[in-house]
């Protein structure tokens, strides 16, 4: 009898080509974008190698593309050269490409799930750390570097040291008005930014089971911010209903076979995790980051902490530097922090439910005159869906700018750069120094919290608004 295994171990075992340490694993789906692939294709071409499985590879453009005026072309010559390189590489190697003029274009981690390519039990890689997003479907999905991208292109396999398993047990129910983003920020605050290093996290518990696929993607997306190699959630009815009928989902008899295979993708009752963290969902409130890493967060009802509240001298020193960069003083109530920009989008919170949650908050209200607010849908499909529901009208009426899809201000590789010294309430995943532009000050929040901050011009506890 096989010993009890975790979900992660089952998916790992299914992909073993050579059982050694490190292990050679077979890759089911390789997602490609313009920033981390050109050197990989160049290496492949120089050595006269080909792409082993173009039919398991798909590309889109997301990091460096503008979100306005696309018909004018890409003005940044370096970005244009990078995007042209991807177009040419996909053409030369016969890889399906969702280009700038394709209605399926979008952030790579939004596009994979929405096209039905991301499925339970797959091994998914991409030259991007937020590949962890796809774990929401019970796939094993992780980010890789450019040398590894070249290796996967050439061999469809990857060498990996086997990570350990970690359970994040989410007990209780998520309270009303508290978003999936608040849950993952709460988890990171608990385990720390390296709490998941060398581990694959499985998120478990009723609060996780009750989440929609969009919410699960928000959770798994930020596994990397907790240092984890990947994050996973066992597939269930919610997962199956989401995938059914999508363009690349299995059809007919193959669908039945797939669903039956997915049913075994759960952690066995007696399986043991190497590490366990327990989080009480019921005690969570909306979170706001005050510092320059995603564990430096506090409840919206709280105040900016003092560096003296940290015992570890390195963390105390980090807090001092974070406060200086963020131009914040200890003791300042979060509700008193004024906002210059609001960015609604990214692979963390750029999906249709995120836009709906924000639209609900702003409907009938106006963006504060001091705030510049932008909505960047995660994909052109999300954009089209939102427009069919009239959300674009709600956003534009309130004073938001309604954009085309891409990574945009999440990492500011395109023209959507937040100016130095200005403060942005952002639904993205990283509040690192300079992330949204040199000197820009990022506060990570949920879509509803970002929307409310846009209206008020400072942070508000969105639960007060939603109850009114």
């Amino acid at each position, binding site marked *: 009898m096989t010993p009890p295994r975790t979900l992660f171990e089952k998916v790992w075992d299914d992909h073993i080509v*050579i059982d050694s340490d490190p292990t*050679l694993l077979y890759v089911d789906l390789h997602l490609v974008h313009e920033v981390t692939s050109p050197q990989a294709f160049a290496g492949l071409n120089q050595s006269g190698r080909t792409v082993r499985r173009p039919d398991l590879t798909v590309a889109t453009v997301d990091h460096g593309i503008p979100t306005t005026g696309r018909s004018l072309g890409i003005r940044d010559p370096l970005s244009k050269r990078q995007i042209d390189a991807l177009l040419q590489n996909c053409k030369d190697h016969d890889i399906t490409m969702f280009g700038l003029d394709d209605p399926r274009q979008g952030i790579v981690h939004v596009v994979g799930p929405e096209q039905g390519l991301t499925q339970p039990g797959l091994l998914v890689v991409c030259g991007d750390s937020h590949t962890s997003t796809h774990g929401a479907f019970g796939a094993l999905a992780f980010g890789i570097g450019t040398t590894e991208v070249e290796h996967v292109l050439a061999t469809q396999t990857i060498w990996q040291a086997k990570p350990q398993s970690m359970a994040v047990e989410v007990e209780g129910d998520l309270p009303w008005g508290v978003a999936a983003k608040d849950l993952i920020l709460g988890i990171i605050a608990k385990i720390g930014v390296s709490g998941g290093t060398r581990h694959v996290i499985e998120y478990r518990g009723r609060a996780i089971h009750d989440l929609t696929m969009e919410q699960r993607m928000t959770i798994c997306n930020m596994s990397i911010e907790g240092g984890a190699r990947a994050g996973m959630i066992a597939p269930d009815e919610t997962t199956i209903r989401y995938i059914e009928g999508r363009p690349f989902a299995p059809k007919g008899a193959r669908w039945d076979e797939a669903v039956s295979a997915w049913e075994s993708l759960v952690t066995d009752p007696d399986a043991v995790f190497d590490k366990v963290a327990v989080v009480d969902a019921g005690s969570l409130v909306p979170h706001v980051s005050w510092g320059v890493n995603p564990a430096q967060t506090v409840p919206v009802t709280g105040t900016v902490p003092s560096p003296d509240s940290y015992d570890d001298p390195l963390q105390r020193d980090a807090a001092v530097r974070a406060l200086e960069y963020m131009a914040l003083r200890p003791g300042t109530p979060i509700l008193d922090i004024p906002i210059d920009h609001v960015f609604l989008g990214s692979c963390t919170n750029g999906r249709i439910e995120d836009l709906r949650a924000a639209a609900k908050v702003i409907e009938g209200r106006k963006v504060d005159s001091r705030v510049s607010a932008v909505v960047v849908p995660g994909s052109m499909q999300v954009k089209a869906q939102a427009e069919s529901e009239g959300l674009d009208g709600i956003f534009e009426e309130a004073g938001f700018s309604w954009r085309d899809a891409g990574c945009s201000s999440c990492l500011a590789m395109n023209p959507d750069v937040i100016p130095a010294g200005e403060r942005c309430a952002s639904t993205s995943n990283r509040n690192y120094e300079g992330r949204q532009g040199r000197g820009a000050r990022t506060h990570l929040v949920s879509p509803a919290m970002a929307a409310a901050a846009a209206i008020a011009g400072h942070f508000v506890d969105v639960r007060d608004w939603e109850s009114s």
Partner: protein
Amino acid sequence: MKPVTTVTGTMVPLDRADVDTDQIIPQQFLKRIERDGYGEFLFYNWAHTDDGIPSSDFIINDPARRGARVLVTGPNFGCGSSREHAPWAIQQWGFEAVITTSAADIFRNNSSYVGLLVVELDQDAVTRLIELAADPTAQVTIDLENQTVTSDGLEEHFDFNPTAKERLVTGLDGIGVTMSHEDVIAAHEHARPSWLPTTVDASS
């Protein structure tokens, strides 16, 4: 990749925790399609003023540190983005090794593929090295074969993944090695269930 067996040289101390890859090489320098030319942008935002002038108070701009070979830094180094531009920039500045309390997973992997030696020591040893590195002429030696770090009065053993070690020591092309296993890859490939997705465009 150039083989790596021993690194000897002076150090640069960077006594910080959680240094992310956005700090190592900011996003505005990721638009190039080449593998080289990143060294001058290492820690760019910390190393330059708002006007783009090198900041005299940031350590890698100290002329006495030019020629240093080993970066010594705190826990969770290289967290965040998967950009391989991070180890490229560290290498192209002139470093051959990083000694840290702990490295982030993707950064550690990427470094092993590009020949940047990343060594993890306990916090006490890192603190001691950071103290020693206050002297810009203090030398450190990392011996990968024997897995030791030695400096003035300090000798530490470190753990290292044996395969990553072999890759660094031999400098072999990883793809060539994997391709020699073609038969097992093909066997696995043929046994995959038929319902698994392909990316062949359904609409064209």
